[in-house]
């Protein structure tokens, strides 16, 4: 019995040393296989359909697919950047004061206002975009906002604004109340407290909210597809679809575009992972 137990422990330690990392590598590898396929194919010299699937490790790498992707989609990339940055400015610009107001109303024990506001913000996140976009189309048609970057900024903010408000409110809730109380005792107005005390302290929260709004708007396809129908404003998501459906020859070029579309997410993952994780927890778990 004792020997068996000892052997068990021995294998247990062994397992921790070697089996766990190997298993982890296998799991990660399986999950990332499609990504590997994408990057590999986008760099492979021949992009014909058969060649793509024949060699998992290409003999050498070329950048011609990326040149093609740039020629084809550089305009879309600029359009998507403008839309995403516009959505960040609009959403955070609205969400920041709202989060401040809600946080301070919480101090004043305005429980009813807070619960209603939070429930509204949660519910707005659950409205399916398709239920909004038909009305957006009609209204934008009359306001000449179809096929326009401002129109898409306004529509895309429906994804970002409620989330940004919840994240920022959660963040401001963690700033010690004494700071704004002190400003109040010193005679600072609410606006001044907001501008000079709370907003500067909330910068990490603002970064988190901004990153998420950017990713939402950058990845948006529904509004990009419906609110630009037939027009020449082409966000990258819509550009990928038309590049893909119109192109039956060069899949490598299409996959290079896909890689380009993932670059912002990749950058955010590398440099802002802390913020992303914080935002996920704040937005999803703290409500």
């Amino acid at each position, binding site marked *: 019995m004792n020997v068996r137990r000892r052997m068990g422990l021995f294998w247990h330690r062994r397992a921790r040393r070697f089996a766990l*990392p190997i298993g982890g590598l296998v799991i990660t590898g399986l*999950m990332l296989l499609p990504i590997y396929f994408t990057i590999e194919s986008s760099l492979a010299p021949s992009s014909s359909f058969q060649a793509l699937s024949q060699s998992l490790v290409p003999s050498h790498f070329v950048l011609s697919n990326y040149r093609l992707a740039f020629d084809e989609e550089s305009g879309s990339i600029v359009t998507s950047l403008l839309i995403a940055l516009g959505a960040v400015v609009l959403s955070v610009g609205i969400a920041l004061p709202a989060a*401040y*107001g809600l946080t301070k*109303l919480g101090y004043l024990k305005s429980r009813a206002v807070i619960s209603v506001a939070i*429930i509204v913000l949660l519910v707005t996140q659950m409205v399916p975009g*398709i239920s909004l976009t038909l009305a957006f189309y009609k209204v934008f048609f009359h306001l000449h906002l179809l096929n326009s970057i401002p129109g898409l900024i306004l529509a895309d903010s429906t994804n970002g604004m409620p989330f940004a408000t919840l994240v920022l409110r959660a963040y401001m809730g963690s700033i010690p109340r004494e700071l704004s109380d002190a400003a109040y005792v010193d005679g600072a107005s609410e606006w001044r407290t907001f501008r000079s005390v709370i907003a500067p302290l909330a910068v990490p929260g603002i970064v988190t909210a901004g990153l998420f709004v950017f990713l939402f708007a950058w990845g948006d396809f529904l509004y990009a597809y419906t609110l630009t129908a037939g027009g020449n404003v082409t966000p990258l998501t819509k550009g990928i679809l038309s590049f893909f459906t119109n192109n039956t020859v060069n899949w490598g070029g299409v996959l290079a575009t896909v890689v380009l579309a993932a670059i912002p997410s990749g950058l955010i993952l590398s440099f802002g992972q802390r913020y992303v994780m914080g935002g996920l927890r704040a937005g999803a778990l703290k409500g």
Partner: protein
Amino acid sequence: MNRKLPREERTLSERQATWSVRAKVGANEALTLARPADYGHGTSGRPARQAGLWHWMRSHQRQAILLAFVVPALTYVILFFAYPLIYGFTMSVEKIGFIGQSGPYIGLHNYRVEINDPVTREALIDTAIFLVASLFFQFTIGLGIASYFSRRFFLSGFLRSLIIIPWLFPPIASGTIFAIMFAGQGGIIDETLLSLHLISSPIFWFDSAFKAMFVIIFVNIWIGIPFNAVLLYSGLQDIPNELREASALDGASVWQRFRYITVPLLRPVSLIVIMLGIIYTVKTFDLVIVLTNGGPDNGSQLMSTWAYTLAFQNFETGQGAAVANMLFIFCMIVAFFYIRATRREVAVA
């Protein structure tokens, strides 16, 4: 009422304390505001109803100023959520063909047409299958990955951060990758299966509704796993290790520890993950458009893409709006349960 009274008294006296602090600081308007009559309600007895908005604003000056900070957000919510939803409802009770037109009121006719339309019924069933299958596998695989990585080992942190990558791809990009991988002739998945002699002739993944739905669900599971894994991982981290160690010392097996410690303590996080999963999944639109465009023969339409197809391609905007509203009502039912489930968390936050 008896229960309520002391609390109101407390808030009142607290408020007076605040005002008197302010008065000491020397703000003149604070002095005038500190008169109890201006409160307009509370224990001093003056009924609130008489006061009106102006009185309320004066007596609750701080609240009013703080509410002003919320006004832009409120305006945006009214203009970009409330108004389009109401407008969408009016569209669904009108006879509208091309989306730019408007039409006469026809009551619930569009809803009746759509409920009797076999495509709508199939879209409804497909949406339900899509939802259940996606959530089940996203959650179980996500939980498996989360518990695997919650044991610390060499490279675990690094690999954990890599697993998030699929979630950060725009869904349309992921859809494109899989559309190319699943392509019927020469796609890498068919080629691999052929070379392993698992199949003898290429599978054309998009030529039947069943196979098309399989691919859509498969891709959506792949996209959703990281989200589930990340949130469940953080949920697992929040479970104190002492609990597991103590029960291990008491002789609980691995399964018992999972069943009686991990499962109950992970329940709140799991609920939220599943609810958010439902919301993200039921909205899915881009995946279907890029993978199948609803085909073959409308066989893989979800409610969202079917509403789009009706309004923008079949020029039956009224009916499209009706389908979109059915989806909206479903989402609101989920929202109701979500908010009920997270109420405690909201109260704590």
